[in-house]
């Protein structure tokens, strides 16, 4: 299971990224940093937040690279990089994380490590990243659908199953 868990986690991260890429690519630059209201995050904020979470928990927490995350900046940003750059950075982060997962010793999955100031079992922390990525993917997809009034047709293949 251990290797299967790592491989499955990477596959799901890549799948979620693909959905984000499609959802964000159809938006214009002004829609990326627009907030629905003062209490809500923009898509730009969520892209920064996902990259920060993946880097902190997998690339640093599992891979041992120094943790340089400043989480509050992810939500404070009101403007910044264009969508192509945001997507490229998130993709780069997901690719690096998948490399870390591919090279992680499965015996380490039950180790306890301190990540984001919490002592966590690595297996649960990796799964947290996948689940967290899914959560915010849902938000980005929803916002993209609302802004463009267009669906995605991702589940058409299930019609034949």
């Amino acid at each position: 299971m251990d290797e299967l868990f790592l491989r499955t986690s990477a596959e799901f991260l890549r799948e979620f990224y693909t959905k984000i890429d499609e959802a964000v690519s159809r938006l214009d630059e002004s829609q990326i940093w627009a907030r629905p209201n003062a209490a809500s995050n923009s898509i730009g904020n969520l892209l920064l937040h996902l990259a920060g979470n993946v880097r902190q928990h997998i690339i640093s927490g599992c891979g041992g690279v120094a943790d340089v995350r400043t989480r509050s900046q992810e939500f404070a940003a009101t403007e910044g990089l264009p969508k192509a750059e945001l997507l490229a950075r998130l993709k780069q982060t997901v690719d690096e994380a998948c490399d870390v997962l591919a090279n992680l010793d499965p015996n380490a999955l039950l180790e306890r490590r301190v990540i984001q100031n919490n002592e966590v079992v690595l297996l649960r922390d990796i799964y947290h990243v996948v689940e967290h990525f899914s959560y915010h993917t849902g938000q980005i997809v929803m916002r993209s659908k609302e802004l463009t009034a267009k669906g995605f047709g991702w589940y058409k293949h299930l019609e034949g199953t």
Partner: protein
Amino acid sequence: MKAYFIELIAHEAWANRILLEALARESSVAERARVVFGHFCSAPDYWLKRVRGENFREHNWWPVFDVAELSARIDHSEQTWRDFLNRMPEPVELQTFETVNQRGDKITFRVVDILTQFHNHSSHHRGQIAVLFRAAGLEPIKTDFINWALERGR
């Protein structure tokens, strides 16, 4: 790894229950959120039908339930999936299920893929309900897996 999968089922039920409790209090988001809730709460039933070899073709992906019905669905999904996993031999994750698609082609699912899929499908849509809360000026409910795990010292 059976224990890990049962954790996912427990987290799923916990997250859905606390979210449903909030929906029952907040009428401003309840109507649209219940539609989303009904959708993702139907996924575990769909996959149970498939792994049990039952008729899944007419599965209703967008049922609209009231709060009491959603609560019953949460309990039912938790119980049936936990029982299903408990009866399954180890290694659970490698167990596969053969089914056919509508063209009659054989296809195979692994338990690890099914559980990871529907657990994340629920998270995807709980995230959307959080957006509805924010849009209504409400604080979203924290349903993350890591919060659930840390609260239990795991």
